């Protein structure tokens, strides 16, 4: 915009030749600066525009098309949208995603906060404990998911063996990933275990940002540890908690890998989630338009959370 602005400014400039030369060289200088700046941005931005922005625009268009990937694309209008309401698998996937989110977000958050408070104290080997909690987050999902399935194996796994030694009747034993009532629990437990270390680190940063004078003041007022936690720590951590909630919610909406590896969406549709449905519709059924419509639902869920976050940040 400002290149053309400069041009108009020059047109209206008084006809002093010296000034005109000066303005011209200033303009040239400005263009040169802009070119340098663009040369910095170009390598990343071109890749980003082609491989991210383009496909995003395409995704929105595709949601209103019929396409199987090889024959001609046809316009579908709202067909794909109406289909959502009749698609039992979509409805199951939608509710499973909601259940996953509603359970795993608060559970992970509480675990992360508890760990952060525990490991914010000056204890021996603190760094080791923190690293150990964090490690599942960076560990290869394929590798740890297969271990998870072995540990939770209904017939031979150590978890059920321990339950058996504790006296639980084999008839009442949870079937974990193979049991339609327990499959979601297994996936959620895995998710909490894998990601809580990451959010613990964010909480640790939040805890370290609390002014220690607040605790001293509370001490003077004779507050006990619990009161200090409720009246100082929790309110002071509110921005962190909010941030963690938003991050966790978005992560939960797009859960896929762990479901794919632990339950394959089953038994039945008991752990089918939105991204799994997108994947199936696209790469198994090659129903690309409909798959994009499901992706659009995911997009609006995430957008809603982001908008809420944006408003909250403005209020603060």
């Amino acid at each position, binding site marked *: 915009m400002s290149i053309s602005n400069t041009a108009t400014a020059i047109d209206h400039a008084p006809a002093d030749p010296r000034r005109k030369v000066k303005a011209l060289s200033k303009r040239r200088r400005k263009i040169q600066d802009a070119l340098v*700046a663009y040369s910095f941005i170009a390598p990343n931005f071109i890749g980003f525009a082609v491989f991210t922005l383009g496909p995003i625009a395409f995704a929105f268009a595709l949601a209103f098309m019929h396409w199987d990937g090889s024959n001609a694309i046809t316009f579908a209008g709202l067909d794909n949208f109406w289909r959502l309401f009749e698609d039992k698998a979509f409805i199951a996937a939608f509710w499973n995603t909601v259940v996953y989110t509603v359970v795993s977000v608060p559970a992970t958050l509480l675990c992360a906060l508890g760990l952060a408070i525990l490991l914010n104290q000056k204890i021996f080997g603190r760094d080791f404990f923190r690293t150990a909690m964090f490690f599942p987050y960076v560990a290869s999902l394929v*590798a740890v998911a297969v*271990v998870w399935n072995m540990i939770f194996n209904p017939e031979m796994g150590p978890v059920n063996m321990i339950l058996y030694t504790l006296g639980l009747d084999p008839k009442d034993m949870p079937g974990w990933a193979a049991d339609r009532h327990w499959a979601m629990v297994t996936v959620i437990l895995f998710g909490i275990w894998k990601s809580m270390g990451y959010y613990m680190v964010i909480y640790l940063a939040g805890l370290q940002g609390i002014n220690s004078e607040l605790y001293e003041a509370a001490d003077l007022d004779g507050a006990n540890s619990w009161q200090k936690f409720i009246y100082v720590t929790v309110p002071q951590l509110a921005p962190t908690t909010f941030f963690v909630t938003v991050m966790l919610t978005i992560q939960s909406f797009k859960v896929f890998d762990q479901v794919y590896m632990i339950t394959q969406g089953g038994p039945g549709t008991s752990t089918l989630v939105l991204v799994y449905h997108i994947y199936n519709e696209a790469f198994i059924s090659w129903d690309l338009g409909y798959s994009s419509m499901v992706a659009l639902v995911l997009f609006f869920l995430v957008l809603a959370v982001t908008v809420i976050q944006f408003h909250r940040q403005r209020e603060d």
Partner: protein
Amino acid sequence: MRIAGRKITAKTLAVYTIAIVITAVMLMPFAWMLSASLKLSRDVFVFPIEWIPSEPQWRNYVDIWTKIPLALFIYNTSKLTIIVTLLQLLTSSFAAYAFAKLNFPYKNTLFLGYIATIAMPWQVYMVPQFLLMREFGLNNTHLALICLQAFTAFGVFLMRQFYMSIPTELCEAARIDGMNEYQIWAKIMLPLSKPALSTLTIFTFVTTWNDFLGPMIYLTKTELKTIQIGLRMFISQYSAEYGLIMAASVVALIPVLVVFLSLQRFFVEGVASSGLKG
């Protein structure tokens, strides 16, 4: 009770007990993995768990290299990870410098393009992206995965946030000394941004190394596969060979463990700052 001159209260004791128990639970799957990787498949599920196998089966670690082309998978993954990480670091820090320290037309509009997609799940546009790559003839190539992972909004954003905290006077002083912008970036900004570069390195390294859905969609030829889908293939082919599966899993974990432990000091800082300043 006193140990080494320090008073041990019930509270301290409780804190240690809780910390140790939770750590044990967190690390239990890794201990199980390591222990099972040295057992015969039929002994893996013996209960009570024999944590240290009486006859460690070191053979498992030899056999995995011949059962599946594990070395090739590791080579493919390393190649991808290194290229993606280098490209990501280079192009992100380059673009971030312009966004943080230079003025140019459409700066805010372009930056908004990045910001708007930062919360956009990749899963929303993975299908059109796949179709685009197929159109380019990149399906079943490593180049597809490189293009897909090397230019992220996250990288530019993280680096820009860090560069914003470096005083602009430093760049101005360098300009007066006759440095051009490229020299300022290389000689002043890059050396100062080690913490941010380390954070981005770990994030990119870990995500690329552990990526599953990307390679699963793009790479169907065995000779192109990465360690994650290779491992997955191994698991479905030899589903009862628990000892071997565990040994291969341990091998797949090691590179991430090494990178994580050597850079974790920066990582914790990085997670904390990228999270909260964002």
